[in-house]
């Protein structure tokens, strides 16, 4: 582990994908990521409002009161499960609630329900990060992306695809189950054609998609799954 020695070198630029739905709520955060942390940020259409900081890690921001509200439970469960299907690692940045200018900061009332949510999240392997606000969240996202890059998991392909055919190929890869936007992006850049991916071995899919062996195997099996069209027609 040479992380100590690396601290003297200028921090390498990191790549982060952001869902377009984050835009309106995260303008300051994006500005900070780009300007203060020199991150390459690309806005795309993900299946939820989250960030992708590496080949295996997704990050979602939640306010503390968001986690503490019982009526949000169902949505939170769906979001976390959805992310866990697509990513090996799921992080939640828990942000302190913002106060309006001139308003006194109200102390957060910690409830049993909130503690129960935290306990369940931790037990399911979700990583929690704590933030005071936008500026700190940007720092955490950049730190996380940098850490993943050091571990060889950073996003290393161009963050966008150009041209109609490549765009269509990306959409096809995205429709494969358990394939996240970053996996699809890797496939777009690493396989010479769709047919090449579809005829690849598990190892080649793992390498080209920059994904875990089990995910690669799932994709491999899906591509060879024999459909029963009779069942589909009746449904």
């Amino acid at each position: 582990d040479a992380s100590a020695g690396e601290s003297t070198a200028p921090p390498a630029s990191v790549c982060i994908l952001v869902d377009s739905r984050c835009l309106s709520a995260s303008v300051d955060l994006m500005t900070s990521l780009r300007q203060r942390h020199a991150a390459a940020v690309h806005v795309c259409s993900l299946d939820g409002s989250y960030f992708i900081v590496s080949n295996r890690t997704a990050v979602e921001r939640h306010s503390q009161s968001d986690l503490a509200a019982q009526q949000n439970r169902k949505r939170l469960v769906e979001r976390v499960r959805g992310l866990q299907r697509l990513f090996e690692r799921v992080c939640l940045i828990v942000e302190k609630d913002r106060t309006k200018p001139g308003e006194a900061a109200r102390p957060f009332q910690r409830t049993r329900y909130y503690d129960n949510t935290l306990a369940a999240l931790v037990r399911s392997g979700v990583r929690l990060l704590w933030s005071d606000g936008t500026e700190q969240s940007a720092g955490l996202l950049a730190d996380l992306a940098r850490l993943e890059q050091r571990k060889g998991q950073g996003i290393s392909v161009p963050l966008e695809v150009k041209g109609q055919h490549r765009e269509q190929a990306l959409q096809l890869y995205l429709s494969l189950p358990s394939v996240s936007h970053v996996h699809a992006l890797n496939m777009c850049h690493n396989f010479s054609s769709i047919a090449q991916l579809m005829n690849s071995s598990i190892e080649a899919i793992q390498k080209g998609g920059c994904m875990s062996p089990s995910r690669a195997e799932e994709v491999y099996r899906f591509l060879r799954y024999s459909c029963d069209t009779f069942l589909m027609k009746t449904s």
Partner: protein
Amino acid sequence: MENKPAALLNAVPPYGHVIASEKWRETTLIHNLKGGGVKILFESELSLTDFHLPNKSCILYVSECDIVAGNNYKRKLVRYRNASSSFQGLVLVERTRLSEQFFSAVQKFVVFDLGLTLLPVSGQTEASQLIAQIVHSGSRENPFRRSSSSQLLDPLVLAVVQQVPGVGRIKALALLQNFSSLQQLSSATISELEPVVGPAAARHIHSFFHKHAAAGT
């Protein structure tokens, strides 16, 4: 005596119980835990961790005083991390007005450098409530746990085929009737595709699958 602590490191308490280090006896935290229906087993040999919980997790408690006084807590954390490899290592950190300015640095060290889970608390009262929830929730079903739901794959395959430009539901079904998997479909020649979708679509589909797609070249 040399290897006794090592054996104790792997001790997992029964449900509803917590194994606590002897030094916590007579504290607010323990008092509140008991009040919250958690049973306590004290253990004097617990040196690297403060609490062992059911479900193979353990807790190291970093107090305001540890942080502000720089009380060697970093070394304690490293030893804790190294000792708790087979456990889920949780770190409760007292985040107070006094320790606030150090919190960000503590979080970086605990989460990014050591890979442990950090949970901030304002003090022992909040800590006891959180620990009680962790203990009690251990016996309940976890809603966030990854579910290995076996989805029906056939409609998903159909959806992928419909991503091919110019292929709607009817053509996709016809294609899958003749080439049952995506791999077979992508390997089909133009002459094999022709009888199913006609010459123009056959050429189009074949070219879509085989067109050079890799960017940057």
